[in-house]
């Protein structure tokens, strides 16, 4: 970890967080986030135009605060990395425009990177170099993916993903049904601590279908149906038990398929990332099942799991180290960038 490793500025704007991170190699120097979540909360979901407006407002102060936090000047930056996709098109575009201008203005290389690969790369800031290969389970409001990662800077293979809702989306929708605030994840996690995960036997979509895909839409509907039946019969809704049982169904499927992937590809390292990785029950059950299967589990701390700029900078640093060709100033923001494209 030498002082002469490149200093990379990372920009992330794929959803509602304006994230700016700075790394030197795999050393984290700054990770500053401005979130527009409060503006979205009353709409019950992220409103793309609101997010895009907020990114434009927040970018300059967030960059200034990241530089100040790292004790650096702009002229210390050796490369700029930015999320080029996937994500909300208009939101991505603000970050890509900013990153191009920073790279052009500083005369340093630009790396447009894949958001999902960045979720994987970020763990190296906390736990050191990634074993090759590793399996990654990425779960958030926007994605639910299982990846085989031979080399995060060059080669990421999709093993499965959700066929309908993202896991985090299911948390949001069930929270609404239970009268809990948006975003639903932390509120369900908290409510569930007072309830029993086996109180209600909710369905586990695609549990035994042999694929590594997920489905959470049926589960979400089953919860709504169960709650409505309770209300119709005039009985109180046991919020804690419903939250715990729903959460158990989600994390049961997620961890089951993640360990199936490890077994199928004979991989001994599992990484969990994305906002839902902050869920306490997911962490506990994943640890339990990894221990039983002899798989090492890596989960970055919550601040690195949710969308942030450090993850983009971390992947940028890997690309610089791997001698990857920098992106041109012509790269587009690609809202549906496939995971196989680690950098554009």
């Amino acid at each position, binding site marked *: 970890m030498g002082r002469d490793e490149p200093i990379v500025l990372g920009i992330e704007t794929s959803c509602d967080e304006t994230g700016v991170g700075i790394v030197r190699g795999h050393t984290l120097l700054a990770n500053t986030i401005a979130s527009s979540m409060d503006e979205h909360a009353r709409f019950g979901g992220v409103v793309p135009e*609101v997010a895009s407006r907020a990114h434009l407002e927040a*970018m300059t102060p967030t960059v200034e605060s990241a530089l100040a936090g790292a004790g650096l000047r702009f002229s210390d930056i050796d490369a700029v990395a930015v999320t080029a996709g996937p994500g909300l098109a208009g939101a991505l575009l603000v970050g890509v425009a900013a990153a191009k201008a920073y790279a052009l203005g500083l005369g340093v290389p630009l790396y447009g990177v894949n958001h999902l690969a960045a979720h994987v790369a970020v763990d190296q800031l906390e736990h050191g170099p990634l074993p090759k290969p590793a399996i990654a389970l990425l779960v958030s409001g926007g994605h639910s993916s299982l990846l085989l990662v031979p080399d995060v800077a060059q080669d990421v293979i999709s093993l499965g993903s959700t066929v309908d809702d993202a896991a985090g989306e299911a948390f949001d929708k069930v929270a609404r049904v239970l009268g809990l605030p948006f975003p639903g994840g932390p509120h369900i996690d908290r409510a569930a601590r007072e309830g029993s995960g086996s109180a209600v036997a909710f369905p586990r979509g695609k549990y035994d279908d042999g694929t590594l895909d997920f489905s959470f839409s049926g589960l979400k509907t089953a919860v709504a149906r169960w709650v409505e039946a309770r209300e119709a019969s005039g009985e109180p809704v046991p919020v804690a038990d419903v939250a715990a049982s729903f959460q158990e169904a989600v994390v049961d499927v997620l961890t089951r398929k993640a360990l199936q992937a490890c077994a199928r590809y004979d991989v001994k390292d599992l990484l969990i990332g994305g906002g839902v990785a902050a869920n306490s029950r997911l962490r506990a059950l994943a640890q339990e099942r990894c221990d039983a299967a002899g798989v090492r589990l890596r989960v970055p701390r919550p601040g690195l799991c949710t969308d942030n700029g450090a993850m983009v900078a971390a992947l940028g640093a890997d690309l610089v180290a791997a001698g990857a060709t920098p992106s041109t100033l012509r790269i587009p923001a690609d809202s549906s960038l496939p995971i196989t494209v680690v950098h554009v």
Partner: protein
Amino acid sequence: MTFVLVLAFDTATPAVTAALHDGERVVAESTTIDARRHGELLAPAVEQVLRESGATLRDVTAIVAGTGPGPYTGLRVGLMTATALALTAGVPAFGVCTLDALAYAAEESGPFLVATDARRKEVFWARYGDPRTRLDGPRVDRPHDLPGELPVIGAGGAMYADVIGADRIRGPLHPSAGALAALAAGRLATLSEEEAAEIARVPEGRVDSVEKARELSVLGPPRPIYLRRPDAQVPGTPKRVTA
């Protein structure tokens, strides 16, 4: 006179346009009409006008971006680029209404309107007394609600010629960064030498000069003119899944 090199660009319409102006003339300009690729085309256009004129960003004394109104996705590309370039180069960034740049390029002696495409069957428009004087607007309305009689500059008129009347339609259709830069350079030239020097003195990574310029009120801040609220509805109670 204080040395001036204005880098200007606009992405509030289908035109992706960038130019450099040295206080007397446009020294380089690049314009591409492509409503869907602002994010891809702007940074290369900036790079190109700098290269063509043999200047670097360090030589630039002010960055000016069109503030719209215009469809938001493209508009933000220009403003984000302006503030980000300014931050790295230690140069102040300013904003000028895009319709003012179109008006500035108009060859009209009397009053006229400027209109651009606002999508959803509406136009962004403003009314001018002469090419340098905006009297009303900008606003967003349906084309048949534009005040009658006056000539209409810009694509927002041309695309609704059947409603507005073909005899009222005039060019140019799109703003040019050359006109935007000339307009901004002209306004900056009205500052005293001390004021201009104060604006140009921006420490690395600071945007104080924008505030200073707003006090001096010759150019505005690089902030978008949206004119519409985001489309979003506050949800009611969740929809029932059982009948």
